[in-house]
C-alpha cells in the first residue's frame, strides 16, 4: 500500500452496485472512483434516486458491493465478513441518520452510550455526558426519545456518533427531517464537533448549500460520478 493511499482514509475504486429486479439486473452505481483524506469533509450530492445513499451504505460497510473495492482506513471491506465489518464500524465509524434512529426504550444518555456498551466499554458515561453537554442537552440526559423534539433527538444522535472518537463520520441527510432553524443548528454542531475531533466527515445530502460547507463535493448522477468539486470549506480549511 502506497503512502498516498495510507493518507486516504477512504479509497474507492471501480465501485459498482447492481440489484436484481423483476425486470432484470439494475445498475444503481457504476464504476465509482474517489478517495477521501483523513480529517477531510466530503459531501455526496445528487438528486433523489441518484444512488448517493447506496454509495454511503457501501462506504460504511452496511452493504456489499457487486464489484470494485472500498478501503476503509486500510481495510478492504470486500475481504471482511459481516461480523468483521461490524467490528470495524464499532471501532472507526460514527453515524447520523435522517430519521435519528434512536432506541426508543433507552434514555438520551443511554442512547449515546450504546455504541460503547456494544463494544464492551462501560466507562463511556463521562464521555457521553460531555458530548450531550456539547450538543446542549445536559438537562435532557434521562429523557426518552419520545419526550424530545425532532431537533433534540438529532442532537442526541450526533452525540452518539462521536462517542468512542470515531475516525470517520457518515451523515445521511442529517437535517432533512428538521425545520430550518433546527436544521441549521444541527449542521453547525456537526461541523464544529467534526473539526474539534479531527474526524473525517462524509455527508450525504441533496442540499447544495449544506454540501458547500464541506471541503469537497462528489456529484452523483444516474449512478455515476459526474464530477468532484471543491466546497467553501476547502478554501477555509
Amino acid at each position, binding site marked *: 500500500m502506497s503512502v498516498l493511499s495510507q493518507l486516504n482514509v477512504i479509497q474507492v475504486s471501480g465501485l459498482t452496485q447492481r440489484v436484481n429486479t423483476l425486470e432484470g439486473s439494475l445498475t444503481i452505481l457504476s464504476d465509482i472512483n474517489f478517495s477521501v483524506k483523513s480529517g477531510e469533509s466530503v459531501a455526496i450530492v445528487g438528486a433523489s434516486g441518484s444512488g448517493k445513499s447506496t454509495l454511503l*451504505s457501501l462506504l460504511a460497510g452496511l452493504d456489499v458491493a457487486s464489484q470494485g473495492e472500498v478501503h476503509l482506513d486500510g481495510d478492504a471491506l470486500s475481504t471482511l465478513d459481516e461480523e468483521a465489518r*461490524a467490528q470495524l464500524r464499532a471501532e472507526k465509524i460514527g453515524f447520523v441518520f435522517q*430519521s435519528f434512529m434512536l432506541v426508543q426504550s433507552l434514555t438520551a444518555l443511554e442512547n449515546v452510550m450504546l455504541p460503547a*456498551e456494544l463494544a464492551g466499554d*462501560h466507562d463511556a458515561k463521562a464521555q457521553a455526558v460531555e458530548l450531550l453537554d456539547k450538543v446542549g442537552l445536559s438537562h435532557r440526559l434521562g429523557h426518552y426519545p419520545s419526550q424530545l423534539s425532532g431537533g433534540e433527538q438529532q442532537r442526541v444522535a450526533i452525540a452518539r456518533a462521536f462517542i468512542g472518537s470515531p475516525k470517520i463520520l457518515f451523515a445521511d441527510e442529517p437535517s432533512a427531517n428538521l425545520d430550518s432553524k433546527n436544521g441549521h443548528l444541527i449542521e453547525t454542531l456537526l461541523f464544529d464537533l467534526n473539526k474539534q475531533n479531527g474526524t473525517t466527515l462524509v455527508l450525504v445530502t441533496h442540499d447544495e448549500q449544506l454540501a458547500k460547507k464541506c471541503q469537497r463535493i462528489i456529484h452523483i448522477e444516474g449512478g455515476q460520478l459526474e464530477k468532484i468539486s471543491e466546497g467553501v470549506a476547502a478554501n477555509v480549511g
Partner: protein
Amino acid sequence: MWVKLAFKLFSREFRRGELTIIFAAIALAVLTVFSLSAITERISLNIAQKSSDFIASDRRLSSNHAFEPQLLKQASQFGLATAQMLYFDSMLFANDELVLGSVKATTAAYPLRGKITIKDNLASKAYEVDTGPKAGSVWLSEGLFYTLKVNVGDKVELGAGNFNVTKVLVKEPDAPFFSLSGNKRVLLNYADIVTTQAVQPGSRVFHRLLFAGNEQELSDYYAWLKPQLKSNQNWQGLKDRQSPLGNNLDRAERFLLLAGLFGIMLAAVAMAVSAKRYCERQYDPVAMMKTLGGSRKVIRNIFLLHLSLVTTFSIVAGLALGFVLQTIGADYLATFMGTELPQAGVRPWLLSAFIGLVCALMFSLKPLLDLFDIPPLRVLRRNLGDTLAISRIHIGLSMLTIFVLMWLFSGEIVTTLILFASTLVVIAVLFALSRLLFAAGRKLGLRPGSSWSLAIATLQKRANANAIQLISFALAIKLMLFLVVLKNDIISDWQMQVPADAPNMFIINIAKEEVTPIKKFFKDNNIAHEDFYPVFSGRVDAVNGEEFARRVSKQEGEEKDENAREGVSREPNLTWLTSLPEGNEITEGEWFTDGGTGDDIEVSVFDGWQETLGLKIGDTITLLVNEQPIDAKVTSFRKVDWGSLKPNFVMILSPNMAGKVPVTYFSAAKLHDRDTKGISQLLQRYPTISMIDIKAQIEQAQAIIAQVSLAIGFVLSIVLVSGALVLISQVQASLAERMQEVVILRTLGAKGRLIKLATLYEFMLLGGIAGLVAAIVSDVALLVIQQQLFDIAGRLHPYIWLLGPVSGALFVSSIGYLMVANTMRQNTQGLLRKLG
C-alpha cells in the same frame, strides 16, 4: 458486558408494555393448563375415591367359589390392605315371623373405602362408622325391623345362630344401587358365618375379596394375579360404566378438556401474534445496533436473554395465579360437594411449565431468527426486512406447535386431530371468504368522506392483515360461542336427566295382587309414580345353543371385557313390555313383531351386550329363570340411557312371556316428606314390598351437575380472557400503522369525530363478519362434536346466528376501540414522536 445492556433493555421494554402481551399469553397458557389439569385431576381423584367408595375398596375380586388363602397372603406381601366378604341368603326368625334375608358377612377391615351408615334405633339420626358389627351381633336394614317386629336390643335367629340386633343398617358404601334383595339386608361379622351353619357345600354363596392400596401396588398385584385368574373369578376396577354419575362426569371431563384445548389454542395464537409483533418492533433497534458495531452474537444473546426472562417470569406468574385460582375454585367446589378434594400431584406443575416453555420457544423462534437476520442496511432502507414478517415457516411452525401442545395437554390424538383439522378448514374458508367480502365492499360506492366509506377503505387497504385479524377474531369468537352453547346444552341435558319431578323412591317386590291397592294408595295421596313393571331375574345360559361360559371365556384378559363379563354373568332384572320405554332407542332390528303376542318369545337387548356377547339379530338366547330354560329370539338392540335415574333393563322380553315365569312388580314414585307416615302404613300393610331411597343419589347427581356447571363457567371465563388477549394482541400489532393513518388523516383535515367513527365502524365490521362466520362454523362443528364426543343429540342453534355477529361486533369494537382510544386522544405532534 452485554448482560447489563440486555437487562436494561428488558426492564425498559417491559415497562413500556412491549412485552406485556407475550408475558400475558405465556402466563395465560400456563394458567389455563395448570388450573384445568389441577382441577380436573383433583375432581378425577375425588371421583376415583368416590368410585372406590362404591365398591368399598380400590379393586375387588368376585367369585361364587371360595378363594385360595394364597391370594390374600400375596396381597399383604404387595402392601395391599384386604377385607373378605361373603354374600348369601338365609332365613331370619323372630317373634314367629320368618323372612328370607340377604346376608353380607364381612371381616373387621370392611369397608376399605367409604363408610357404613347406621342408626342406633329406628327413630334416631343416622351416622357413619368405619367397620361392621362385632361377633355375636347383627345389623338389620329398616324393612326387617317391621317384618320381624323387632327392635334394637332384641335377638333374631339367623340360620342356626342367635344374634343380638345392635344397630339399624342404613347404607353400606357398596350396597347395590338396585337389587331385588331390597331392604331385607343383614350385616354379619365374618367370624359368625360358621355359627349360622348357613353355608354348606353346594350353597349358593358369593365370595368377594376387597383390596386397597396405591396404583402401583394394585397393578403389581394384578400382574401377579392375572395369569392365575379362573373363569369364575372377576377382577373389578374403579369405574362403573353404567353409573349415571360416571357418564355425566365423563362428559364434564371431556368438556373441561375441550375448553382447555381451546384456551391453549387461543393463548397460543395470542403468543404467536405478539411474539411476531415484538420482534418486528425490534427490527430498527437491531439494525441500529448492528450499524453501531453490535455483533450478531451480542444481539442474539440480548434477545435470547429477553426471551428467557419473559418466559421465566410468565411461567412463574402463570403457575402462581393458576395455583391461586385452582385453590379458590377447588375449595369452592369442595364446599359445594360437601367433600374434600384430594391434592393434585406434580403433573399439573410440570405439564403447565413445559407447555409454557414450548409455547415461548416455538412461537418466538422464527420471529427471533428473522430478527437476528435484519440487515444493518435497514437504517437507510427502512422497509428492508419487512418481507420477512410473512413467513410460511413461522405459520407452519406455529401450527405444529399448537398441535403438539393440544396433544400434550389432552393425551388424545383423535380429539386433537378433529379439532385441529376442523380449525384448518375454518381458517381456509375464512381466508377465502374475507377476501370476497372485502372485494364486495369495494363495489358499495359509499359517499366520499363518510365514516363508513373510510372504514371500508381502511379494511380494503389492509386486506391481508385484516384477513389474518378476521381469522383470529373469528377463531376466538367461534371457540367462545362453541363453549357457551355446549355448556348450555350439556347442562340442560343433565337437567333433563334429573328433572325436578324425578322419582326418588324405587318400590320393588310388589306382588301382583298388591299392584292395584298400591296404585290406589298413590292416587289417594296424590303421589306421582312410574308404570308398574313386571320384574323377574334370569341369567344368560346359552347363545344359539352354545354355553355362555365358553363364549365369554374367549374374552379373558382385558379389564374392559372383565367388567362386561361380570355384567353378563350376573342375574340381571328382566321385564316384558308392550312398547319401547322412554329414553331407549332401537339401534338395530325392530321392536316386537305383532306387539310380541306371537308364539315365539322375542327379546330386545341393550346394545352394550351386543358386542360383549357377539350377538346379532335372529340369535336365540337361552335364559335360565328359576332354573327353567327359556329361549328368546333377539329381534332388536337398544341404546339405553344409563345416565337417567329411571328404571332401565338390559333385556326386555315380549309380552307373551306373561304367565310363563313368576314375577313381582316394580315401580318408582316421587315422595315428599308429608308422605312419610302414609308410606310407613303402606310398608306395615304390605311387609313384603321393599323401598329403595334414591334421594341421596339424585341429590348427589344434582350437586355434581351444579358443581361441574361452576367449573365449566370458570373455564369459560379463562377462554374469554384468552379470546380478549388474541384481540388485544392483534389490535396492538396494528397500532403503529393506525397512528400513522391518524396523523395523515388529521394532516389532510379529517375531523376527530370522522376518524373515531371510522375506527369504531371498522372494528364493528370486522367483529360482525367474524361473529357471523364463527356462528355458522360453530353450529356446524357443534352438530358433530355433540354427537361424537358428548353423546348428546345434535341440533342447530338459530339464536347464535344472531348472537355471533352482534356479540362479535360489540366485543371486537369495544376492545379494539378502547385499545386505540389513547391514540385518538393524542395530538399529531405526540403521535409523530411516538412513531420515531
